[in-house]
């Protein structure tokens, strides 16, 4: 029985591996880009802090944070704050498609930093957040 489980596990290993490689390829490229733009060491902790930080929207006065739409558990599906449209989980552990498309990552980081913080994120902040998401 144990042997059987082990074989199963070994068969699944390449699958898990390929997913994480796929996820890192796009992120690695972006991290390299951020580094050449002046960013230094990226930190999961700093990413996590930014993820949970609340910012006041200048127009509505309402508090906003990443979790407003994505919830505080990245393995859960989120919901668009305005329209309620479902958002797929960002955690690569449950959504292998997450962080694989470099264009998508660029687009959403730009839009969502502006929505949440009121400005574009710095290369350092973007790198921290991506590093954090990857660990989820």
């Amino acid at each position, binding site marked *: 029985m144990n042997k059987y489980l082990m074989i199963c596990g070994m068969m699944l290993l390449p699958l898990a591996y390929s997913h994480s490689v796929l996820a890192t390829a796009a992120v690695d490229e972006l991290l390299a880009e951020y580094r050449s733009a002046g960013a230094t060491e990226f930190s999961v902790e700093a990413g996590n802090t930014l993820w949970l930080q609340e910012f006041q929207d200048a127009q509505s006065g309402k508090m906003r944070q990443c979790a407003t739409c994505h919830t505080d558990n990245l393995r859960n599906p989120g919901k668009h704050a305005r329209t309620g449209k479902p958002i797929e989980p960002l955690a690569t552990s449950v959504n292998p498609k997450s962080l694989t498309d470099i264009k998508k990552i660029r687009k959403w980081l730009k*839009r969502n930093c502006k929505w949440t913080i009121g400005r574009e994120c710095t290369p350092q902040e973007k790198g921290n957040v991506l590093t954090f998401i990857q660990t989820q």
Partner: protein
Amino acid sequence: MKKSLTLTVALLIYLPYLAADDNERVTPVRNEQYKEECGSCHFAYQPSLLPSRSWQRLMTQLEDHFGENAELEANTQKTLTDYLISRSANSSRDKLATKMMRRLAKNKIPLRITEMPYLKHEHDKIPDKMVTQNTEVKSLSYCDKCHTQAESGSYLEKDIRIPGYGQWEEKAEREESEKDDD
């Protein structure tokens, strides 16, 4: 002979309904890029629900898209604007689009589909409790909350299901509100 007569009669009876169906239907969205870029945040509204002039203006102010940031890369923005304009209410042959255009003043450039006079007129008998006060609907902007087949381009009355209220029939509702008045 008898069979074909029955068929003809059936067709003659059914034809007006078919035509009526056509009046409440628009060409569905088949552009995958549009579905992806616009439809990931909200219902992918069919281009024939707004005139070209509206799409043109809307697409140049995506940084403030009704309070949301919906910025696109320049080339994506151009491609999607071209798509929307080529199938807009004034470019389309959809009967519903023609009707919507007919009611719209020439000097008006509505940015919301809910500002289209035809749409306002079509929804004016629906009580607030079913839309704005209905937590599952909230606004007329969310077409597909009640128009269950909206994605396929159907806005037919038979496909309407209002969350918490079910089917919508204009006549039945009017009678109910008259009863309320007594």
